[in-house]
């Protein structure tokens, strides 16, 4: 088969489905765009977008910020990975943010975001983001768009069903995707990989991480012990179902190898319903077991422009086989991914990614089934409610491979379908499909502004596609990721725009710019800078030696660094450049780089202090300079560091202009 035929075949496989009678070529797809759409996504020069789109950065480990409807990328926020734009994870101040019980982690996988809510509505305070690989949750400020806190989740692996939040941001949650032997001190995690060992030793927990209402500070309130299953996604109840949270799970087969086949045997897996208010009562009554574990808690302090990392050593674990009323299983076809509660809190939509229907569960019926003990049996000691008793109904023949559902607040749900590559709109009350539209190609998660809240903002649906292929100019084997914007204001969904994204976005949320834009911080006030190595006045710029450690108290302002001549540093010294940007105006960062640093550069915001550690490795002159174009004399913003041999007697001197040597 030649290459052209192979491509065509791939197209048929990806795109054939209810929306397609025949396989499609890209040329035909252009006709899917109706005329007049350009003005709907055109944001005139100097004008601002209507929505912020907060998009997970996938394997980049960060979070990206786009504008809607333009699809323009504004910022990549480093969260779980080092960042070569700002020095995050390289500067001395930010290194503690990436600390874990496994030590310093340079790169993680970021899957989902959750925007803080009050009474179920977006409030524009914080972004929560999960670290999937080494389980963590981060909190990002909507004022600074910086990561302010990261908490590690012990007793867990593959933190996928995270960081979804409860109605008033009481909690953000975490769940174990890979069943895993617990980390308890004294437990023996060195267990064999076989069926008997899996059933005996491998557990899954969901963790409820409390969020302090004023500061946002996180702490693990308790963990609920579940049998070894793969917990996948989660949504909290809202309004009438506030107090509950729902987790989808797959691999109820408890397979430990070739899950592709072995975890797809049963017709149904589960949605786990957790009554977290009941859990709180048990914790208060001291019914939890203390689990002795070690996990990092990293906090950024905006006053000192520095992070600290401390270790916590305990969680409270609740065992629902011993504590009745906190966990129920609802059978759900088949290997469910999405598990989404509608804006009224009445319905829970399961999306079995191997199923050909969408089951919709009724919260009221669930409560009745619990009260009536309407069970079809037990799974690992947990009650399993009868499918028919908790079901509101099934959406029939919606497509293949439903993944995830969001809502427009007008009684409609929108489900993404990976296998048939489409978005499907359906009526929650009648369960009838009312519209479908193809996506290019193979959509994963989708998002509607406010879609997971009690008050969706509607207007658009965005498909975050898993496959890009021919949608953009090719860039070799490695392609940009592909998102698509749809207008959902009418009866029919209309494709408006393709826009490229970074790092394989999984989930995303969007909220009106009016909730965020007015409070966006412009610079840090010098008067409030409490960094221990701040230099608030150029007259205090200096170099101080303490044994082999050299502290450079340097200032940056358009367009010079002070001091800019330094002598007396020796090979093998540990030099810390503490650079304070003295600017007090919006958008005047300065950068810093020194030749052969072996570390990174810095980018320092106005009023901020940042530190680069530099260990000179050879004798010579090491020039340094500002890396961010700051003024007409930016090229002049440079200096020299003289590095002498270890043991040399060159005295430590420094200066700038008059105070430099003539």
């Amino acid at each position: 088969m030649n290459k052209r035929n192979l491509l065509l075949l791939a197209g048929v496989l990806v795109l054939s489905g209810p929306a397609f009678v025949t396989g499609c070529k890209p040329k035909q797809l252009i006709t899917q765009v109706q005329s007049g759409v350009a003005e709907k996504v055109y944001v005139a020069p100097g004008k601002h977008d209507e929505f912020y789109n907060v998009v997970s950065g996938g394997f980049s480990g960060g979070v990206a910020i786009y504008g809607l409807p333009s699809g323009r990328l504004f910022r990549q926020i480093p969260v779980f990975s080092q960042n070569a734009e700002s020095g995050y994870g390289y500067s001395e101040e930010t290194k503690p943010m990436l600390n874990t019980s496994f030590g310093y982690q340079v790169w993680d996988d970021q899957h989902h975001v959750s925007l803080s809510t009050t009474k179920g509505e977006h409030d524009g305070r914080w972004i929560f983001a999960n670290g999937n690989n080494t389980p963590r949750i981060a909190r990002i400020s909507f004022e600074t768009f910086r990561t302010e806190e990261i908490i590690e989740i012990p007793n867990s692996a593959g933190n996928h069903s995270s960081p979804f939040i409860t109605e008033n941001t009481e909690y953000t949650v975490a769940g174990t995707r890979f069943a895993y032997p617990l980390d308890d001190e004294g437990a023996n995690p060195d267990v064999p990989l076989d069926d008997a060992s899996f059933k005996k030793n491998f557990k899954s927990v969901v963790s409820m991480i409390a969020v302090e209402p004023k500061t946002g500070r996180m702490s693990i309130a308790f963990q609920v012990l579940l049998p070894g299953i793969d917990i996948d996604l989660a949504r909290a109840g809202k309004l009438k179902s506030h107090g509950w949270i729902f987790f989808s799970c797959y691999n109820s087969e408890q397979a430990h190898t070739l899950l592709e086949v072995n975890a797809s045997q049963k017709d149904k897996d589960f949605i786990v319903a957790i009554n977290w208010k009941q859990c709180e009562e048990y914790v208060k009554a001291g019914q939890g077991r203390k689990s002795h574990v070690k996990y990092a808690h990293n906090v950024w302090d905006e006053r000192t422009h520095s992070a600290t990392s401390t270790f916590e050593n305990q969680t409270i674990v609740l065992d629902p086989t011993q504590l009745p009323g906190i966990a129920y299983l609802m059978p759900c076809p088949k290997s469910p991914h999405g598990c989404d509660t509608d804006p009224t809190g009445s319905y829970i939509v399961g999306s079995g990614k191997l199923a050909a229907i969408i089951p919709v569960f009724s919260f009221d019926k669930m409560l009745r089934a619990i009260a009536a003990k309407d069970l079809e049996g037990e799974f690992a000691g947990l009650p399993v409610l009868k499918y028919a008793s908790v079901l509101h109904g099934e959406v029939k023949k919606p497509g293949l491979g439903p993944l995830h559902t969001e809502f427009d607040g007008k009684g409609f749900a929108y489900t993404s379908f990976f296998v048939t590559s489409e978005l499907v709109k359906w009526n929650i009350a009648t369960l009838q499909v009312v519209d479908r539209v193809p996506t290019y190609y193979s959509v994963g998660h989708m998002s509607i502004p406010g879609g997971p809240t009690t008050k969706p903002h509607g207007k658009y649906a965005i498909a975050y596609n898993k496959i890009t292929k021919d949608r953009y100019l090719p860039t070799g084997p490695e392609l940009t990721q592909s998102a698509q914007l749809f207008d959902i204001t009418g009866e029919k969904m209309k494709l408006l725009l393709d826009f490229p994204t970074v790092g394989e976005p999984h989930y995303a949320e969007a909220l009106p710019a009016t909730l965020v834009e007015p409070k966006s911080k412009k610079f840090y006030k010098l008067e409030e800078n409490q960094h221990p190595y701040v230099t608030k006045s150029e007259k205090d710029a200096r170099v101080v030696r303490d044994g082999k450690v050299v502290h450079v108290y340097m200032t940056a302002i358009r367009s010079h660094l002070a001091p800019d001549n330094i002598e007396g540093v020796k090979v093998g010294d540990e030099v810390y450049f503490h650079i304070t940007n003295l600017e007090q105006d919006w958008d005047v960062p300065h950068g810093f780089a020194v030749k052969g640093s072996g570390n990174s550069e810095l980018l320092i915001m106005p009023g901020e202090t940042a530190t680069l550690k530099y260990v000179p490795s050879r004798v010579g002159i090491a020039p340094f300079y500002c890396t961010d174009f700051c003024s007409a004399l930016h090229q002049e913003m440079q200096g020299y560091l003289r590095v002498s041999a270890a043991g040399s007697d060159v005295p430590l001197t420094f200066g700038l202009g008059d105070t430099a040597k003539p």
Partner: protein
Amino acid sequence: MTKPLKPEWVAAGKAIYEMKCLPCHKLTNVRLVGPGWAGVSKRRQPLWIINMITNVDMMLAKDEEAQKLLELCLVRMPNLSISPEDARSILEFMRSNDGEP
């Protein structure tokens, strides 16, 4: 204008000068990035000085004298987010620097 100068304003102005102005302005008549401050309180009207400190972007857009200085120095004076009260203290410090009692 205060006569004699208010010492607490002079002190406050000096502290702000050292944090935000000193990198570019000497207290002599030597130009560094911007003009030296010696004599500035006699050369310029108080209102002009306050405007330059608190609203430099407007001054560089509209004021001929400010524009002449930009042609001379070639670096736009940055907005350092100084409040009118702090600007008043800086002016007091300039007058003190120029020898007013």
